[in-house]
Protein backbone atom coordinates (compact mmCIF):
# COMPACT_ATOMS: atom_id res chain seq x y z
CA UNK A 1 0.00 0.00 0.00
CA UNK A 2 2.86 2.31 0.91
CA UNK A 3 6.43 1.40 0.04
CA UNK A 4 9.21 3.81 1.01
CA UNK A 5 12.66 3.11 -0.36
CA UNK A 6 15.87 4.79 0.88
CA UNK A 7 14.06 8.05 1.51
CA UNK A 8 16.27 11.04 2.35
CA UNK A 9 15.30 14.60 3.13
CA UNK A 10 17.43 17.49 4.35
CA UNK A 11 16.57 21.07 5.26
CA UNK A 12 19.40 23.53 4.79
CA UNK A 13 21.93 20.75 4.66
CA UNK A 14 20.69 19.19 7.91
CA UNK A 15 19.37 15.66 7.38
CA UNK A 16 15.81 15.24 8.67
CA UNK A 17 15.05 11.84 7.19
CA UNK A 18 17.99 9.61 6.45
CA UNK A 19 17.76 6.48 4.31
CA UNK A 20 14.34 5.49 5.64
CA UNK A 21 12.59 2.33 4.46
CA UNK A 22 9.15 1.15 5.48
CA UNK A 23 6.01 -0.42 4.12
CA UNK A 24 2.34 -0.31 5.05
CA UNK A 25 0.29 -3.33 3.99
CA UNK A 26 -3.42 -3.14 3.20
CA UNK A 27 -5.48 -2.80 6.36
CA UNK A 28 -2.39 -2.48 8.49
CA UNK A 29 -1.67 0.21 11.04
CA UNK A 30 1.93 1.38 11.18
CA UNK A 31 3.09 3.82 13.83
CA UNK A 32 6.12 6.04 13.39
CA UNK A 33 7.40 6.39 16.91
CA UNK A 34 10.01 8.81 18.04
CA UNK A 35 10.83 12.03 19.84
CA UNK A 36 10.21 15.50 18.41
CA UNK A 37 12.57 16.14 15.52
CA UNK A 38 12.91 12.46 14.63
CA UNK A 39 11.56 13.16 11.15
CA UNK A 40 8.11 11.59 11.65
CA UNK A 41 6.02 14.49 10.40
CA UNK A 42 8.33 15.09 7.46
CA UNK A 43 7.94 11.43 6.53
CA UNK A 44 4.14 11.81 6.51
CA UNK A 45 4.35 14.97 4.43
CA UNK A 46 6.55 13.23 1.90
CA UNK A 47 4.13 10.30 1.80
CA UNK A 48 1.27 12.54 0.67
CA UNK A 49 3.44 14.64 -1.63
CA UNK A 50 3.32 17.82 0.45
CA UNK A 51 7.09 17.86 0.79
CA UNK A 52 9.54 16.88 -1.91
CA UNK A 53 11.74 13.86 -1.47
CA UNK A 54 15.46 14.55 -1.90
CA UNK A 55 16.49 10.96 -2.64
CA UNK A 56 14.72 7.62 -2.71
CA UNK A 57 11.05 7.15 -3.46
CA UNK A 58 7.67 6.57 -1.87
CA UNK A 59 4.99 4.66 -3.73
CA UNK A 60 1.38 4.77 -2.55
CA UNK A 61 -1.02 2.28 -4.17
CA UNK A 62 1.79 1.67 -6.65
CA UNK A 63 1.94 5.31 -7.75
CA UNK A 64 5.13 7.28 -7.22
CA UNK A 65 4.15 10.19 -4.99
CA UNK A 66 6.68 12.57 -6.50
CA UNK A 67 5.35 12.01 -10.02
CA UNK A 68 1.64 11.56 -9.33
CA UNK A 69 0.78 13.51 -6.18
CA UNK A 70 -2.78 14.24 -7.32
CA UNK A 71 -3.58 10.60 -7.96
CA UNK A 72 -2.20 9.68 -4.56
CA UNK A 73 -4.02 12.43 -2.67
CA UNK A 74 -7.31 11.51 -4.33
CA UNK A 75 -7.12 8.14 -2.61
CA UNK A 76 -5.82 8.96 0.87
CA UNK A 77 -6.98 11.02 3.85
CA UNK A 78 -4.69 13.27 5.86
CA UNK A 79 -5.14 14.34 9.48
CA UNK A 80 -2.66 17.13 10.21
CA UNK A 81 -0.98 17.77 13.51
CA UNK A 82 -2.09 21.38 13.56
CA UNK A 83 -5.80 21.92 13.52
CA UNK A 84 -6.60 23.60 10.23
CA UNK A 85 -10.36 23.43 10.22
CA UNK A 86 -12.02 26.20 8.23
CA UNK A 87 -13.25 28.60 10.90
CA UNK A 88 -15.34 30.60 8.40
CA UNK A 89 -17.49 27.53 7.82
CA UNK A 90 -19.69 25.39 10.03
CA UNK A 91 -18.79 21.88 11.05
CA UNK A 92 -20.97 20.39 8.30
CA UNK A 93 -19.66 22.86 5.70
CA UNK A 94 -16.10 21.84 6.53
CA UNK A 95 -17.00 18.34 5.36
CA UNK A 96 -19.07 19.57 2.40
CA UNK A 97 -16.29 21.75 1.05
CA UNK A 98 -13.75 18.97 1.54
CA UNK A 99 -15.99 16.60 -0.37
CA UNK A 100 -16.14 19.11 -3.22
CA UNK A 101 -12.33 19.36 -3.25
CA UNK A 102 -12.39 15.60 -3.72
CA UNK A 103 -14.74 15.91 -6.66
CA UNK A 104 -18.01 14.72 -5.11
CA UNK A 105 -21.05 16.41 -6.62
CA UNK A 106 -23.32 18.56 -4.49
CA UNK A 107 -25.77 15.80 -3.52
CA UNK A 108 -23.13 13.18 -2.86
CA UNK A 109 -21.19 15.72 -0.78
CA UNK A 110 -24.24 16.50 1.34
CA UNK A 111 -25.00 12.83 1.97
CA UNK A 112 -21.36 12.10 2.77
CA UNK A 113 -21.11 15.04 5.18
CA UNK A 114 -24.18 13.90 7.13
CA UNK A 115 -22.93 10.34 7.23
CA UNK A 116 -19.53 11.44 8.56
CA UNK A 117 -21.01 13.82 11.12
CA UNK A 118 -23.04 10.93 12.50
CA UNK A 119 -20.09 8.55 12.59
CA UNK A 120 -17.96 11.16 14.39
CA UNK A 121 -20.81 11.69 16.88
CA UNK A 122 -21.09 15.31 15.78
CA UNK A 123 -24.55 15.05 14.23
CA UNK A 124 -26.05 17.58 16.62
CA UNK A 125 -23.20 20.07 16.15
CA UNK A 126 -23.29 20.33 12.35
CA UNK A 127 -24.38 23.95 12.21
CA UNK A 128 -21.87 25.26 14.73
CA UNK A 129 -18.48 26.66 13.79
CA UNK A 130 -15.52 24.48 14.78
CA UNK A 131 -14.48 27.05 17.37
CA UNK A 132 -17.51 26.08 19.46
CA UNK A 133 -16.53 22.40 19.56
CA UNK A 134 -14.38 20.84 22.27
CA UNK A 135 -10.81 19.82 21.48
CA UNK A 136 -11.78 16.17 21.14
CA UNK A 137 -14.70 17.00 18.85
CA UNK A 138 -12.50 19.13 16.62
CA UNK A 139 -10.02 16.28 16.34
CA UNK A 140 -12.84 13.89 15.43
CA UNK A 141 -13.96 16.38 12.81
CA UNK A 142 -10.43 16.41 11.39
CA UNK A 143 -10.55 12.61 11.14
CA UNK A 144 -14.03 12.76 9.58
CA UNK A 145 -12.77 15.32 7.08
CA UNK A 146 -9.96 12.97 6.07
CA UNK A 147 -12.59 10.31 5.32
CA UNK A 148 -14.71 12.23 2.77
CA UNK A 149 -13.28 10.36 -0.21
CA UNK A 150 -13.64 6.98 1.56
CA UNK A 151 -9.87 6.37 1.49
CA UNK A 152 -8.39 2.99 2.30
CA UNK A 153 -5.33 4.70 3.81
CA UNK A 154 -5.21 7.57 6.27
CA UNK A 155 -2.13 9.48 7.38
CA UNK A 156 -2.36 10.91 10.88
CA UNK A 157 0.20 13.24 12.42
CA UNK A 158 0.03 12.99 16.22
CA UNK A 159 -3.71 12.34 16.17
CA UNK A 160 -4.30 12.88 19.90
CA UNK A 161 -1.55 15.34 20.75
CA UNK A 162 -2.65 17.81 23.39
CA UNK A 163 -5.98 16.12 24.14
CA UNK A 164 -7.14 15.22 27.63
CA UNK A 165 -7.37 11.48 28.39
CA UNK A 166 -11.11 11.30 27.86
CA UNK A 167 -11.04 13.09 24.50
CA UNK A 168 -8.13 10.87 23.50
CA UNK A 169 -10.29 7.79 24.15
CA UNK A 170 -13.04 9.07 21.84
CA UNK A 171 -10.53 9.66 19.03
CA UNK A 172 -8.97 6.26 19.58
CA UNK A 173 -12.29 4.48 19.43
CA UNK A 174 -13.08 6.32 16.18
CA UNK A 175 -9.76 5.15 14.73
CA UNK A 176 -10.32 1.62 16.01
CA UNK A 177 -13.64 1.51 14.17
CA UNK A 178 -11.78 2.49 11.00
CA UNK A 179 -9.23 -0.25 11.51
CA UNK A 180 -12.02 -2.74 12.03
CA UNK A 181 -13.32 -1.72 8.61
CA UNK A 182 -9.97 -2.47 7.05
CA UNK A 183 -8.71 1.11 6.63
CA UNK A 184 -4.91 1.25 6.83
CA UNK A 185 -3.35 3.86 9.11
CA UNK A 186 0.06 5.46 8.95
CA UNK A 187 0.41 7.56 12.06
CA UNK A 188 3.06 9.36 14.01
CA UNK A 189 3.00 9.45 17.76
CA UNK A 190 5.17 9.89 20.76
CA UNK A 191 2.61 8.34 23.06
CA UNK A 192 3.47 4.74 23.83
CA UNK A 193 -0.06 3.96 24.91
CA UNK A 194 -1.35 5.19 21.55
CA UNK A 195 1.16 3.09 19.64
CA UNK A 196 0.32 0.01 21.69
CA UNK A 197 -3.39 0.50 21.20
CA UNK A 198 -3.60 1.49 17.54
CA UNK A 199 -0.59 0.01 15.78
CA UNK A 200 0.01 -3.45 14.37
CA UNK A 201 3.63 -2.49 13.91
CA UNK A 202 5.79 0.38 15.03
CA UNK A 203 8.84 1.88 13.41
CA UNK A 204 11.07 3.51 16.00
CA UNK A 205 12.74 6.60 14.54
CA UNK A 206 15.56 8.64 15.91
CA UNK A 207 17.27 11.52 14.13
CA UNK A 208 15.73 10.61 10.79
CA UNK A 209 16.69 6.96 10.84
CA UNK A 210 14.68 3.83 11.54
CA UNK A 211 16.38 2.11 14.44
CA UNK A 212 13.96 -0.73 15.03
CA UNK A 213 10.65 -2.05 13.79
CA UNK A 214 8.12 -4.76 14.52
CA UNK A 215 4.92 -5.50 16.40
CA UNK A 216 4.90 -3.75 19.79
CA UNK A 217 4.78 -7.03 21.75
CA UNK A 218 7.48 -8.59 19.61
CA UNK A 219 9.81 -5.62 20.17
CA UNK A 220 9.26 -5.68 23.91
CA UNK A 221 10.10 -9.36 24.04
CA UNK A 222 13.14 -8.95 21.79
CA UNK A 223 14.64 -6.24 23.96
CA UNK A 224 13.34 -7.59 27.26
CA UNK A 225 11.44 -4.45 28.14
CA UNK A 226 8.21 -4.08 30.09
CA UNK A 227 6.74 -1.23 28.04
CA UNK A 228 7.39 0.88 24.95
CA UNK A 229 8.76 3.76 27.04
CA UNK A 230 11.44 1.48 28.40
CA UNK A 231 12.07 0.09 24.93
CA UNK A 232 12.62 3.53 23.52
CA UNK A 233 15.01 4.47 26.29
CA UNK A 234 16.82 1.22 25.70
CA UNK A 235 17.09 1.80 21.94
CA UNK A 236 18.07 5.43 21.84
CA UNK A 237 19.46 6.12 25.26
CA UNK A 238 17.05 9.06 25.38
CA UNK A 239 13.61 9.54 26.86
CA UNK A 240 10.78 10.13 24.40
CA UNK A 241 9.93 13.54 25.76
CA UNK A 242 13.51 14.73 25.49
Amino acid sequence: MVIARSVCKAYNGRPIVDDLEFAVRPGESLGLLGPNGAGKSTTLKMTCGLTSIDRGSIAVFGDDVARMPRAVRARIGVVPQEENLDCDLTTRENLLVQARYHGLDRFAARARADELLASAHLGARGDEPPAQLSGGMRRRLLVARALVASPSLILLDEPTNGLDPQARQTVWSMLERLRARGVALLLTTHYMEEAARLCDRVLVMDRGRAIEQGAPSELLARHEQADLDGLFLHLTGAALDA
Partner: protein
Amino acid sequence: MRPPRLRMALRVWQRHARVFLKLWRHALPGPLIDPLLFLLALGFGLGSYVGDVQGGSYPEFLAPALCACAAMWAASFETTYVLFWRMHEGRVHDNVLTTPVEVEDIVLGELLWAGTRACLHGTSFLLVIAALGYVDSRFALLLPPFLFLGGLTFAGVGMAFTMFVRTMDSLAAFFTLVLNPMFLFGGVFYPTEMLPGWAQPIAWLAPTQHLVGIARALTSGAHVETIASDAVWLTVSTMLLAVVPLLVLRRRLVL
Protein backbone atom coordinates in the same frame (compact mmCIF):
# COMPACT_ATOMS: atom_id res chain seq x y z
CA MET B 1 4.82 24.01 -12.48
CA ARG B 2 1.73 22.29 -13.87
CA PRO B 3 -1.01 24.16 -15.70
CA PRO B 4 -3.94 25.05 -13.41
CA ARG B 5 -7.21 23.20 -13.96
CA LEU B 6 -10.39 25.25 -14.10
CA ARG B 7 -12.57 22.54 -12.53
CA MET B 8 -10.34 22.33 -9.46
CA ALA B 9 -9.94 26.11 -9.29
CA LEU B 10 -13.71 26.47 -9.22
CA ARG B 11 -13.83 24.34 -6.07
CA VAL B 12 -11.53 26.84 -4.37
CA TRP B 13 -13.76 29.60 -5.74
CA GLN B 14 -16.84 27.82 -4.38
CA ARG B 15 -15.40 27.71 -0.87
CA HIS B 16 -14.84 31.47 -0.93
CA ALA B 17 -18.28 32.08 -2.43
CA ARG B 18 -19.86 30.00 0.31
CA VAL B 19 -18.14 32.08 2.99
CA PHE B 20 -19.05 35.31 1.17
CA LEU B 21 -22.73 34.37 0.93
CA LYS B 22 -22.82 34.07 4.70
CA LEU B 23 -21.16 37.43 5.26
CA TRP B 24 -22.11 39.58 2.28
CA ARG B 25 -24.44 41.82 4.24
CA HIS B 26 -21.43 42.93 6.25
CA ALA B 27 -18.90 42.64 3.44
CA LEU B 28 -20.58 44.57 0.65
CA PRO B 29 -21.86 47.93 2.03
CA GLY B 30 -18.51 49.08 3.49
CA PRO B 31 -16.57 49.06 0.22
CA LEU B 32 -19.42 50.92 -1.48
CA ILE B 33 -19.20 53.77 0.98
CA ASP B 34 -15.55 54.49 0.10
CA PRO B 35 -16.16 55.46 -3.55
CA LEU B 36 -19.35 57.24 -2.54
CA LEU B 37 -17.39 59.42 -0.12
CA PHE B 38 -14.93 60.31 -2.88
CA LEU B 39 -17.77 61.09 -5.24
CA LEU B 40 -19.43 63.36 -2.67
CA ALA B 41 -16.31 65.11 -1.38
CA LEU B 42 -14.40 65.48 -4.65
CA GLY B 43 -17.10 65.14 -7.29
CA PHE B 44 -19.53 67.54 -5.75
CA GLY B 45 -17.30 69.46 -3.33
CA LEU B 46 -14.16 70.05 -5.35
CA GLY B 47 -16.13 69.57 -8.58
CA SER B 48 -17.97 72.82 -8.05
CA TYR B 49 -14.63 74.62 -8.54
CA VAL B 50 -13.66 72.49 -11.52
CA GLY B 51 -15.12 73.21 -14.90
CA ASP B 52 -16.14 70.59 -17.44
CA VAL B 53 -13.69 67.74 -17.99
CA GLN B 54 -13.67 65.93 -21.34
CA GLY B 55 -16.98 67.47 -22.27
CA GLY B 56 -18.93 66.62 -19.10
CA SER B 57 -19.31 67.76 -15.52
CA TYR B 58 -16.64 66.75 -13.01
CA PRO B 59 -18.90 64.26 -11.14
CA GLU B 60 -19.72 62.68 -14.52
CA PHE B 61 -15.99 62.34 -15.15
CA LEU B 62 -15.26 60.95 -11.69
CA ALA B 63 -18.19 58.57 -11.11
CA PRO B 64 -17.32 55.80 -13.62
CA ALA B 65 -13.66 55.94 -12.60
CA LEU B 66 -14.68 55.27 -9.01
CA CYS B 67 -16.56 52.26 -10.29
CA ALA B 68 -13.25 50.92 -11.58
CA CYS B 69 -11.67 51.84 -8.23
CA ALA B 70 -14.30 49.86 -6.30
CA ALA B 71 -13.24 46.84 -8.36
CA MET B 72 -9.56 47.68 -7.81
CA TRP B 73 -9.94 47.95 -4.03
CA ALA B 74 -11.96 44.74 -3.78
CA ALA B 75 -9.46 42.67 -5.77
CA SER B 76 -6.51 44.23 -3.94
CA PHE B 77 -7.90 43.64 -0.46
CA GLU B 78 -8.87 40.09 -1.37
CA THR B 79 -5.40 39.20 -2.65
CA THR B 80 -3.43 40.90 0.11
CA TYR B 81 -4.94 40.82 3.60
CA VAL B 82 -7.51 38.10 2.94
CA LEU B 83 -5.12 35.92 0.95
CA PHE B 84 -2.34 36.36 3.50
CA TRP B 85 -4.74 35.33 6.22
CA ARG B 86 -5.82 32.25 4.28
CA MET B 87 -2.22 31.27 3.60
CA HIS B 88 -0.68 31.82 6.99
CA GLU B 89 -3.30 32.29 9.71
CA GLY B 90 -6.40 30.37 8.68
CA ARG B 91 -4.28 27.64 7.04
CA VAL B 92 -7.03 27.16 4.49
CA HIS B 93 -4.59 26.20 1.75
CA ASP B 94 -2.68 23.72 3.92
CA ASN B 95 -5.77 21.59 4.05
CA VAL B 96 -6.69 22.09 0.39
CA LEU B 97 -3.28 20.73 -0.58
CA THR B 98 -3.99 17.40 1.12
CA THR B 99 -6.76 16.88 -1.48
CA PRO B 100 -6.39 16.45 -5.26
CA VAL B 101 -6.47 20.26 -5.61
CA GLU B 102 -2.97 21.53 -6.43
CA VAL B 103 -1.10 24.77 -5.79
CA GLU B 104 -1.70 25.92 -9.39
CA ASP B 105 -5.43 25.33 -9.00
CA ILE B 106 -5.39 27.42 -5.82
CA VAL B 107 -3.70 30.30 -7.67
CA LEU B 108 -6.34 30.26 -10.40
CA GLY B 109 -9.16 29.86 -7.86
CA GLU B 110 -7.91 32.82 -5.83
CA LEU B 111 -7.58 34.99 -8.95
CA LEU B 112 -11.07 34.09 -10.15
CA TRP B 113 -12.55 34.78 -6.75
CA ALA B 114 -10.82 38.15 -6.44
CA GLY B 115 -12.09 38.98 -9.94
CA THR B 116 -15.58 38.00 -8.84
CA ARG B 117 -15.43 40.25 -5.78
CA ALA B 118 -14.13 43.07 -7.96
CA CYS B 119 -17.02 42.57 -10.37
CA LEU B 120 -19.56 42.49 -7.51
CA HIS B 121 -18.24 45.64 -5.87
CA GLY B 122 -17.76 47.51 -9.14
CA THR B 123 -21.19 46.54 -10.42
CA SER B 124 -22.83 47.53 -7.13
CA PHE B 125 -21.26 50.95 -7.42
CA LEU B 126 -22.32 51.10 -11.05
CA LEU B 127 -25.91 50.73 -9.85
CA VAL B 128 -25.33 53.56 -7.38
CA ILE B 129 -24.03 55.96 -10.03
CA ALA B 130 -26.76 54.87 -12.45
CA ALA B 131 -29.31 55.79 -9.80
CA LEU B 132 -27.56 59.14 -9.42
CA GLY B 133 -27.87 59.69 -13.16
CA TYR B 134 -24.23 59.34 -14.16
CA VAL B 135 -24.71 56.56 -16.67
CA ASP B 136 -25.61 57.82 -20.13
CA SER B 137 -25.24 54.75 -22.28
CA ARG B 138 -26.64 51.24 -22.53
CA PHE B 139 -23.08 50.13 -23.19
CA ALA B 140 -22.75 50.30 -19.39
CA LEU B 141 -24.50 46.91 -19.29
CA LEU B 142 -21.28 45.50 -20.77
CA LEU B 143 -19.15 46.88 -17.95
CA PRO B 144 -19.40 44.02 -15.37
CA PRO B 145 -17.33 41.51 -17.38
CA PHE B 146 -14.65 44.17 -17.79
CA LEU B 147 -14.75 44.86 -14.04
CA PHE B 148 -14.12 41.14 -13.62
CA LEU B 149 -11.22 41.28 -16.10
CA GLY B 150 -9.72 44.37 -14.46
CA GLY B 151 -10.25 42.70 -11.09
CA LEU B 152 -8.14 39.78 -12.31
CA THR B 153 -5.34 42.17 -13.22
CA PHE B 154 -5.41 43.91 -9.84
CA ALA B 155 -5.60 40.49 -8.21
CA GLY B 156 -2.45 39.58 -10.11
CA VAL B 157 -0.71 42.69 -8.77
CA GLY B 158 -1.87 42.00 -5.21
CA MET B 159 -0.96 38.32 -5.30
CA ALA B 160 2.47 39.01 -6.75
CA PHE B 161 3.12 41.32 -3.79
CA THR B 162 1.65 38.99 -1.15
CA MET B 163 3.87 36.14 -2.32
CA PHE B 164 6.93 37.95 -0.98
CA VAL B 165 5.49 39.29 2.26
CA ARG B 166 6.40 37.64 5.55
CA THR B 167 4.19 39.54 8.01
CA MET B 168 0.74 41.02 7.75
CA ASP B 169 2.11 44.44 8.75
CA SER B 170 4.18 44.60 5.58
CA LEU B 171 0.99 44.54 3.53
CA ALA B 172 0.38 48.15 4.55
CA ALA B 173 3.30 48.98 2.25
CA PHE B 174 1.28 47.65 -0.68
CA PHE B 175 -1.47 50.15 -0.08
CA THR B 176 0.94 53.02 0.47
CA LEU B 177 3.42 52.29 -2.30
CA VAL B 178 1.36 50.51 -4.93
CA LEU B 179 -2.35 51.01 -4.56
CA ASN B 180 -2.52 54.67 -3.54
CA PRO B 181 -0.23 55.83 -6.37
CA MET B 182 -2.31 53.82 -8.85
CA PHE B 183 -5.43 55.45 -7.41
CA LEU B 184 -4.06 59.00 -7.37
CA PHE B 185 -2.13 58.97 -10.66
CA GLY B 186 -4.16 56.45 -12.66
CA GLY B 187 -6.49 58.85 -14.42
CA VAL B 188 -9.24 58.69 -11.81
CA PHE B 189 -9.28 62.37 -10.80
CA TYR B 190 -7.84 63.90 -13.97
CA PRO B 191 -6.87 62.59 -17.39
CA THR B 192 -3.40 61.05 -17.38
CA GLU B 193 -2.49 63.44 -20.21
CA MET B 194 -2.23 66.08 -17.46
CA LEU B 195 0.72 64.23 -15.94
CA PRO B 196 4.24 65.37 -16.91
CA GLY B 197 5.50 63.64 -20.04
CA TRP B 198 7.94 61.38 -18.20
CA ALA B 199 5.20 60.15 -15.84
CA GLN B 200 2.72 59.16 -18.52
CA PRO B 201 4.42 55.88 -19.51
CA ILE B 202 4.55 54.94 -15.81
CA ALA B 203 0.83 55.60 -15.46
CA TRP B 204 0.28 53.49 -18.58
CA LEU B 205 2.02 50.58 -16.82
CA ALA B 206 -0.57 50.58 -14.02
CA PRO B 207 -3.84 48.76 -14.70
CA THR B 208 -5.91 51.62 -13.30
CA GLN B 209 -6.04 53.89 -16.32
CA HIS B 210 -7.02 50.99 -18.57
CA LEU B 211 -9.96 49.88 -16.43
CA VAL B 212 -10.93 53.50 -15.81
CA GLY B 213 -10.83 54.12 -19.57
CA ILE B 214 -13.16 51.18 -20.20
CA ALA B 215 -15.55 52.30 -17.44
CA ARG B 216 -15.69 55.86 -18.84
CA ALA B 217 -16.20 54.71 -22.41
CA LEU B 218 -18.98 52.26 -21.60
CA THR B 219 -20.91 54.51 -19.20
CA SER B 220 -20.74 57.51 -21.53
CA GLY B 221 -21.01 55.68 -24.83
CA ALA B 222 -18.18 57.83 -26.20
CA HIS B 223 -15.02 56.35 -27.79
CA VAL B 224 -16.27 52.81 -27.15
CA GLU B 225 -13.78 51.48 -29.71
CA THR B 226 -10.90 52.40 -27.37
CA ILE B 227 -11.83 49.66 -24.92
CA ALA B 228 -10.35 46.97 -27.17
CA SER B 229 -6.76 48.02 -26.58
CA ASP B 230 -7.37 48.48 -22.86
CA ALA B 231 -8.95 45.03 -22.62
CA VAL B 232 -6.01 43.47 -24.43
CA TRP B 233 -3.65 45.29 -22.07
CA LEU B 234 -5.51 43.96 -19.02
CA THR B 235 -5.64 40.42 -20.41
CA VAL B 236 -1.96 40.24 -21.27
CA SER B 237 -0.79 41.78 -18.01
CA THR B 238 -3.01 39.43 -15.99
CA MET B 239 -1.40 36.47 -17.68
CA LEU B 240 2.08 37.82 -17.05
CA LEU B 241 1.34 38.68 -13.41
CA ALA B 242 -0.19 35.26 -12.72
CA VAL B 243 3.17 33.65 -13.43
CA VAL B 244 4.53 35.07 -10.15
CA PRO B 245 2.21 33.20 -7.75
CA LEU B 246 2.34 30.13 -9.97
CA LEU B 247 6.10 30.04 -9.44
CA VAL B 248 6.23 31.19 -5.83
CA LEU B 249 3.12 29.96 -3.99
CA ARG B 250 4.30 26.35 -3.91
CA ARG B 251 7.42 27.37 -2.06
CA ARG B 252 5.43 29.54 0.35
CA LEU B 253 2.97 26.76 1.19
CA VAL B 254 4.93 23.55 0.72
CA LEU B 255 8.30 22.94 2.29
